[in-house]
């Protein structure tokens, strides 16, 4: 099935506008999936600003779009500068090795621990609604 061109265009626009963009199940304040929550936890630990898109209302059409854009159909997905970095596994590995801090140009936290995942502070990262 081909991706919906309008949705694809919207996603490409978000990728241009948000240096760091997370597609996740739920919102940073209320993640609806453990893997999404862990990625939120990593980003919060690093203290970076990021855009967050809740994929749940548009899950299947969005899978087609990300399949076409980056050959990846499962969520969460973290993009930096428009490029897919990875899902939960990769993001946690890159936190531990310091690769993610280098990529995001932030200081590596002294005790970088993937499992400190916590829902985000509600002031940060207002969720982006798509569709």
């Amino acid at each position, binding site marked *: 099935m081909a991706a919906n061109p309008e949705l694809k265009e919207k996603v490409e626009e978000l990728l241009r506008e948000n240096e760091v963009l997370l597609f996740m199940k739920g919102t940073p304040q209320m993640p609806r999936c453990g893997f999404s929550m862990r990625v939120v936890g990593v980003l919060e630990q690093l203290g970076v600003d990021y855009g967050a898109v809740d994929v749940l209302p548009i899950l299947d059409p969005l899978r087609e779009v990300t399949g076409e854009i*980056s*050959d*990846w159909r499962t969520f969460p997905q973290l993009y930096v500068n428009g490029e*897919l*970095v*990875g899902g939960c*596994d*990769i993001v946690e*590995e*890159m936190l531990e090795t310091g*690769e993610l801090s280098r990529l995001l140009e932030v200081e590596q936290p002294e005790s970088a621990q993937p499992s400190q995942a916590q829902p985000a502070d509600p002031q940060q990262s207002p969720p982006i609604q798509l569709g």
Partner: protein
Amino acid sequence: MADLAEIERMIAEALPGAEVEVVDETGGGDHLRAIVRAPQFEGRSRIDRHRMVRAAVRARMDDGSIHALSISAEPPG
């Protein structure tokens, strides 16, 4: 429910020279972890390495034998 030996074989065939271990993470047979050390990973981003492993087992993900696959993919040494 996936056949772990078959999954290992699929990855090893796609990445000649790789060391491959596939483990059942939950005991349910469909949440798997693949630990792969392959010379082909040298110089590739993590996401590309994961794409290479997933591509090798796509048939078993598409038919539902594998529900979730976590991947640890490093170059050898």
